């Protein structure tokens, strides 16, 4: 089921997400800072696993402000989210595991990008306290750079003394 902002969020079995989880995803997918502030715990821990040295939306963020900065301002510089499909949503108390497909249009090129994600979400008092994402990052990065990756090419580091005279 494709999730758009006015949709009743449901997974592939037709099971509708509980209101607290649907409210979170509505805020997350809208990239709206005010809506995000209402669903994020002040001490939220956030991690999207992936090559942080190649795309700065990967990595760890701590605290509500850092996550809002990422979701509402940094990610939209790269991607315009067009749909999120919930293939599986599992819930135990305030703990949810989501397996889904994310579709987005790359802002620079207009290319449509689609990749699968596994999201692990913990809530406290109805607010998101922990969020971690695992995805097939090799596929995602190939789609974002727009070509097959040559794995034999090693990333060149900047020599430590390069800026010493500046």
């Amino acid at each position, binding site marked *: 089921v494709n999730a758009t902002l006015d949709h009743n969020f449901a997974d592939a079995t037709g099971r509708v997400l509980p209101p607290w989880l649907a409210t979170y995803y509505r805020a997350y997918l809208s990239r709206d800072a005010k809506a995000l502030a209402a669903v994020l715990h002040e001490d939220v821990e956030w991690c999207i696993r992936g090559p942080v040295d190649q795309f700065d939306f990967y990595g760890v963020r701590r605290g509500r402000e850092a996550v809002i900065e990422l979701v509402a301002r940094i990610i939209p510089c790269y991607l315009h989210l067009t749909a999120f499909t919930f293939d599986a949503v599992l819930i135990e108390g305030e703990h949810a595991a989501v397996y889904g497909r994310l579709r987005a249009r790359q802002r620079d090129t207009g290319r449509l990008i689609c990749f699968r994600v596994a999201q692990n979400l913990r809530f406290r008092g109805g607010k998101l306290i922990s969020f971690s994402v695992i995805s097939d990052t090799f596929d995602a990065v190939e789609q974002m750079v727009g070509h097959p990756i040559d794995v034999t090419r090693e*990333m060149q580091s900047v020599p430590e003394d390069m800026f010493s005279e500046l």
Partner: protein
Amino acid sequence: MMDEPLSRSTVEAFYAAYASRDPIRVAPFLADDVEWHLAGPVDLIPFCGYRRGREAVIDYLARGVPSVFAGMRFELDDLVIEGSRAGLFSKVSAVQNTSGRVIHYRCAHFITFRAGKVVSLQGLSDTFDMVEQVVGHRIDAYHDAQSTMPTDLVTV
């Protein structure tokens, strides 16, 4: 007929059997028509991809994984169970058989059980991290593979 709710002990027993890669331990957990999909670059990590049926999954465990890793350990970070489905988030530690390097990466598995047996497993891993460790260096993602392919074709 409704399946019995899945127990944490069943999931953990399956995961321990899976990590062991011992066909005799794993086979009893697999439905005849199990579907098994690990997302990833099959040309670089040959055990990624889609398998269907118990024999194909056993072959993946007995031959596919050992073609890359000599040993493998799962450390379960988080587990969510609802009904007959489980979502697992883990750290994997493995020994690369060609280099002896120890490789660590994160993965998630979404597993559906029926009558105590796995009918579907969907796996996702941080494959960029995994591939970097397998090739043994950081990868420049912006370098196009096609631009470094042999240029022995002549256009007339």
